[in-house]
């Protein structure tokens, strides 16, 4: 087991990602933040918290998207669904999708399908805490990356969040 990000590094990385998103979008009046259920929500909650210190909190549109029914592995494994909560229109908006780990790209593929059922955004960007960059099975790349790491498929990356797991850190399990 190897620590990729310590508690302090997680905090700094989240702060940086929030600043990078703001750098691209400046004002968030035409941008919506969408966290992916279940574990992307911890990151998106933190980022929205950081962003609300930088811009007018009322200007942030923040939703949560569950992709369970859009997965391509329904036949092999059933997952428990979570709540989707997008209380605004995404039509013509710039969407920043947020997830904890980008690995094969299949979750993001499903998320794009799910997202398009809510309308036609003008642009979709992807923000992840960890990018396992050499394991992609689909042509999907992040726009904002916390830390890119090189892993082999048999390894596991585990992201711990204080709210759920009692501590903030990212570990590589071989």
């Amino acid at each position, binding site marked *: 087991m190897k620590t990729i990000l310590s508690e302090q590094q997680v905090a700094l990385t989240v702060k940086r990602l929030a600043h990078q998103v703001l750098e691209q979008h400046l004002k968030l009046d035409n941008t919506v933040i969408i966290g992916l259920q279940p574990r992307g929500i911890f990151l998106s909650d933190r980022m929205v918290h950081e962003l609300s210190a930088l811009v007018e909190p009322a200007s942030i549109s923040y939703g949560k998207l*569950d992709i*369970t*029914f*859009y*997965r391509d592995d*329904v*036949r*092999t*494994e*059933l*997952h*428990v*669904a*979570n*709540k*989707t909560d997008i209380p605004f229109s995404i039509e013509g908006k710039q969407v920043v999708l947020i997830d904890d780990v980008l690995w094969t790209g299949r979750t993001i593929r499903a998320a794009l*399908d*799910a997202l398009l*059922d*809510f*309308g036609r955004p003008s642009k979709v960007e992807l923000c992840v805490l960890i990018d396992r960059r050499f394991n992609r099975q689909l042509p999907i790349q992040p726009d904002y990356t916390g830390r890119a790491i090189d892993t082999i498929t048999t390894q596991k990356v585990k992201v711990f969040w204080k709210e759920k797991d009692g501590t903030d850190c990212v570990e590589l399990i071989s």
Partner: protein
Amino acid sequence: MKLSTKHLLGIKDLTTEDIQLILSTATNFKDVLQRPVKKVPSLRDVTIVNLFYENSTRTRFSFELAEKRLSADTLNFAASNSSAAKGETLLDTVNNILSMKVDMVVMRHSASGAPHFLSKHIPAAIINAGDGINEHPTQALLDAFSMIEKFGSLKGLKVAIIGDIMHSRVALSNIYLLKKMGAEIMVAGPPTLIPKYITEALGVRVEYNVKNALQWCDVANVLRIQLERQNQPLFSSLREYNLAYGISRKLLESIGKEITIMHPGPINRGVELDSDVADGPSSIVLNQVENGVAVRMAVLYLLSGT
């Protein structure tokens, strides 16, 4: 996470966890049904046959819509205009349909136990959409979903099931489910339509006076008189049944408390339920129908993975 069973033959075979999983998944599907695109691609590689050997409007449409909202391909079978009318056996019909690469069977049959029989002979997942006087599991699940939506929980909820208990598969499935989920159950109706020993067998209260039942309950699930299953006269006339056991606005007002009215449909207006009650503010009959699609989506989704 999956169900403990491969088929949905009856509530009797489900665990409490199964019921909770179906109901919580149905909540997610109800959300899907409120969206601009009321459809998800989960079952796009699944073909489902709706095998209806007995008439149905609500249940068949509800299943068909649920299948379409999940992107499944559907086939519809009605016994009256099929080869069953030429004498083909149930097993032959189903095996022929399955040889065309069909993955799941939704089935209604007038013989109790028909889906159980089928489940021993075919590999596909079977969902019971009502078998004779035995069970109608998806109806009980959608009734539970509608009650939870209104009351938050089934625990300790007082539910009176009123009417033709003897011939009702809705009653039996509801009793099994409500018992597993901790509700209190009373059955009420004429003595000829309530099975003997039902208290000993199922642990429900019995009441022959509808007014007393209404005074006791929070929810009244009113059932249809199943004339097609009664081969001897069990009460003198529909008019008399209405006078003694029918639920009217006047009767409800005389109780002096709010009671939620449910009915699985089709309603015989003026027999078990008067129109001003069926369409009144305390009726959640149409919510039941709406929730039916979400609940059936959950069942189909959860059984498709096995």
